[in-house]
């Protein structure tokens, strides 16, 4: 079934095993700093490379709010504006640093009707050349339609 970008995916058409479209994010200092400041996180490790290196990190690295924000975007870019996130659970791994693009992949692991809703669980993995940056589960619902 073809999906129109910007429109909500009918929940009833989503089934276990469905694979989300790959999302590749180039990671630059600008993206890291923009996300940190938009989330009001002024921790120097997210904008000051000298500070980050003194703490043992290879470079400035993405803050967790931004990682969560991109995971949420990855889900709603796929599911559409009617999607509502209920849970966003991640285990954190390697840092997201400049020059290491992030690859977001996901697959539906559960889909069930709850009243008028289709509740969907998606296993997600966000990885770069260093390894897994974040792995986990998102629970999202859509009108069952």
């Amino acid at each position, binding site marked *: 079934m073809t999906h129109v970008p910007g429109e909500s995916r009918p929940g009833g058409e989503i089934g276990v095993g469905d694979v989300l479209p790959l999302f590749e994010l180039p990671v630059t200092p600008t993206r890291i700093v923009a996300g940190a400041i938009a989330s009001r996180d002024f*921790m120097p490790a997210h904008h000051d490379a000298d500070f980050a290196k003194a703490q043992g990190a290879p470079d400035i690295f993405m803050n967790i*709010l931004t990682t969560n924000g991109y995971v949420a975007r990855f889900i*709603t870019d796929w599911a559409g504006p009617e999607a509502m996130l209920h849970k966003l659970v991640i285990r954190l791994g390697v840092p997201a640093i400049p020059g290491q693009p992030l690859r977001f992949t996901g697959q539906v692991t559960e889909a069930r009707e709850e009243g008028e809703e289709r509740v969907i669980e998606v296993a997600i993995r966000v990885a770069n050349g260093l390894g897994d940056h974040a792995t986990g589960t998102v629970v999202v619902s859509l009108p069952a339609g």
Partner: protein
Amino acid sequence: MTAAEVDPLRARLEVYIGTPMGPPAVAPDPVNLPMIRHWVDALDDRNPVYLDEAVAAATRFGGIVAPPAMLQTWSMARPRIEGIAERGGSPVEMTQDNPILALDEAGYVGTLATNSELEFMRYLRLGDLLQLTTEVESISEFKTTSLGKGYFVTWVTTYTCAEDEVVGRQRFRIFKFDPSTIEASE
């Protein structure tokens, strides 16, 4: 350290478990469009329910809602930039009810976030004023990992709006480690 040995630091940390971590806080500003726009632009997130009133009104949300992952953003403490590096990046001074301060003082100055679990009961709307309380949920026994030796600390932040309506929750786990033990454990 074997299980039979007494860990005096861990024993001291026990008192923090199940107790508040910092005072209850109120967001400096209610949920508002300028901060949503800033976030949406920073993350290139074009979901119309965050900015387009006409589109949002026709969805189940009935109007503009804030991006769910902004939950923590609304209630972040206003940072004091002066001295932020000296405080290890903490936006404000930590209060004495915080086990992280005790771990820092004991030499476990390294911090690595390991888990984040966000739960959203409903999406936030313009004008919502968030309040939060944070409680220490658990502190692990002394652990040796590839990152060195230390303790996992887990806390839960509960976000409420007016009338004590719980709108979201975040469980967060960090590993507090002694950086000098990194090589020793490899």
